[in-house]
């Protein structure tokens, strides 16, 4: 019997070790897209229509909003989403230095994986909300705290588990202040988010599914985002400057910056 038990433990350990290691710096400070190797490459992406940098922001605002993958809200929320959308400079919590929250904060910039938890590190930016963020995600098989016992937060309570080679992070217990994305995409406190992280070599794919039957007709599967492993062994995450909103009073149009 002892021998059998030993074989069983070895088997469990083998299974545990068979999961991919997600640890690494994924994209450093960049947001989505390919890993940018140089300032020249970054500069090459900046020119806009007519080669005029003045058009850069207006063009990118339009492109950013052209994503055809939109959450399907119940009709009673359409007007509210549109109002938030049209008044993004004042309504978007992220533009008021608030955290983006899950899932808007997207994939982590760095992952530290231990047998019992994932430590996810985020660097700030307009799209991810401000302030360096972190999440500690247990992956030890514990259940969620009952929803009624959770205080609603920006990141909610996240618990991870493996589905094959994919890490699934299941989160509940949110406030209803954050947005799902630019565009006024509101949600309720009953939101349930499932993030999937899958490593394939030096590529990490992140995708989130949002369930929120209070406001959505059906779950919203966000576009996947692919992160490249930063090959620099000395790569570090840059420190974020404190966010202080000082621009709003100077804006003269409703263009969402």
């Amino acid at each position, binding site marked *: 019997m002892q021998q059998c038990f030993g074989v069983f433990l070895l088997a469990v350990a083998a299974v545990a070790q068979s999961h991919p290691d997600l640890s690494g710096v994924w994209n450093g400070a960049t947001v989505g897209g390919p890993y940018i190797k140089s300032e020249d490459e970054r500069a*090459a*992406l*900046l*020119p*806009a*229509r007519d080669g005029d940098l003045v*058009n850069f922001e*207006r*063009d*990118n*605002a*339009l*492109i950013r*909003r*052209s*994503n*055809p993958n*939109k959450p*399907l*809200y*119940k*009709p*009673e929320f*359409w007007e509210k*989403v*549109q109002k938030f*959308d*049209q008044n993004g400079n004042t309504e978007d919590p992220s533009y008021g230095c608030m955290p983006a929250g899950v899932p808007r904060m997207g994939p982590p910039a760095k992952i530290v994986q231990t047998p019992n938890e994932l430590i996810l590190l985020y660097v700030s930016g307009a799209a991810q909300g401000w302030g360096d963020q972190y999440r500690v995600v247990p992956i030890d098989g514990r259940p969620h705290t009952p929803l009624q016992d959770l205080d609603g937060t920006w990141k909610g309570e996240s618990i991870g588990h493996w589905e094959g080679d994919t890490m699934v992070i299941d989160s509940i217990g949110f406030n209803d202040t954050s947005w799902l994305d630019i*565009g*006024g995409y509101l949600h309720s406190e009953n939101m349930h988010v499932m993030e999937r992280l899958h490593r394939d070599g030096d590529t990490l794919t992140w995708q989130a599914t949002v369930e929120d039957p209070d406001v959505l*007709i*059906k779950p919203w599967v966000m576009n996947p985002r692919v992160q490249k492993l930063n090959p620099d062994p000395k790569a570090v995450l840059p420190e974020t400057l404190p966010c202080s909103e000082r621009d709003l009073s100077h804006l003269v*149009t*409703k*263009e*969402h910056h």
Partner: protein
Amino acid sequence: MNRHLWGAVALAALGASSLSAQDATATIKAAQYAIGMIRGPARVDAINTLEYWGAGYTYAFGQAYRPGAPWPAFKVSYHASLSYSVPAMRVDMTRSNPDGPVQGGGGLPLPAPQRQIQVVSGDFAWNESVPGAGFIPGTSAVPAPGAAGERLMQLWSTPFGALKMAAAAGPKAQAAVENGLNTITFPLSGTTVKITLNAKQQVERVETRSDNPVLGDTITETTYSDYQDLGEIKTDVQFPLHIVQKQGGFPVLDLTITRTDPNNPYVVFPVPDNVEQAPRTPPPVKVESQKVADGVWYLTGGTHHSVAVEFKNYIVLVECPLNDERALAVIDAAKKTIRNKPIRYVVNTHHHFDHLGGLRACAAEGATILTQTANQAYYETLWAQPHTLNPDRLAKSSRKLVIEPIGEKRAITDGARTLELYHLQGSNHADTMLIGYLPKEKVLIEADVFNPPAANAPPGAVVRETVNLSDNLKRLKLDVQQITPLHGRLVGIEDLRRAIGEK
């Protein structure tokens, strides 16, 4: 011409064709750039969703007061929201009566302003009682499966939509220069779309082609002018201040745009369950035969009815409505009801397209068309037009159109039975309206001027056209007992009196 020269000509022809496709790509890009679609260093088409608001007029296509006259107008407030990626479009409009005298069909005059919300999303089309109906308790989404193609064509006729589809056509898009203006033609949904650009390379006109039972190959021409950035949030996206759409040579839409949101606003088009589960094709045409009196049958089913009258050696059919399909079903029902007799005459009550659409099929049957005198020249002009997109029964036959015009009165009789046809005076619905009367059977046949509501429905407002019908019956001293309306149900003269408030 020697062999080498032929080779050179062939190469030149190939070169011209290839050059034309290359030109088309450049012309399309230039037009997309001119109206602000192309953005960023990657030069991507950044327009996906759009909203615009306007006011002006819609017109009731095929419902003119007089044959050959412009379509009658409704005043309209108009709000369109659309997504090119779904593809989908929601048109939310409120129609009201125009200023001044109201003449013509299409529901005019409206008893009250009328809101219509028409949606298409992919292959699904439906009408909403409010935006998002079907997902809100107490609201209704009514499937309109037959409308999806036409509504999508409206989407692809917008300036951005036309250029997107031209780009998607790839090498099948062809560029040319006509009258000094660039044009792009490309195939779409079995027809050809033509875009004409203005001097600034903005889309000035989009022409699409479709089949219409009356007009045959029908051009829908939409013109766009006075491009501006009309958004509250400035995007540099240019949208026309003025939109005019014509069908059959007359406007069907004339809008002045007051506001746009081309900044990819949040607009969505979820398909309600009942729409998704509804049959995708219209139900089969059904004709039911109901005996009204000896030799008189009411051929009902669907929205438009007909009446078959038996004479000694032939049948007279009153109305071949809608289209070939309906007309053929009516012909079949008439022949099964009254066996071994040909349909010699078909009475056309008036020139509105819903009552005229099946007439070509009845002409192909060999029947002589009886219609009001003012219609003759109009019908002869209409029926000379090509029907190549969807050749109908008449286009495939060698029959010639035979019209016998009716001035104010005509009687058809075999000695035993008589059908009298009268030109209705004083109608604001149609200037060419005929009514039928069977004196021995005391049966009246009429279209559009008295549409009886469902039995036990509460009485509605008095309709002027129904009062006018009653006045005509008195003027003509017709002793009517039963009425076979070509919309509605078989009723008695007392129903007509009740409808106009007479005891």
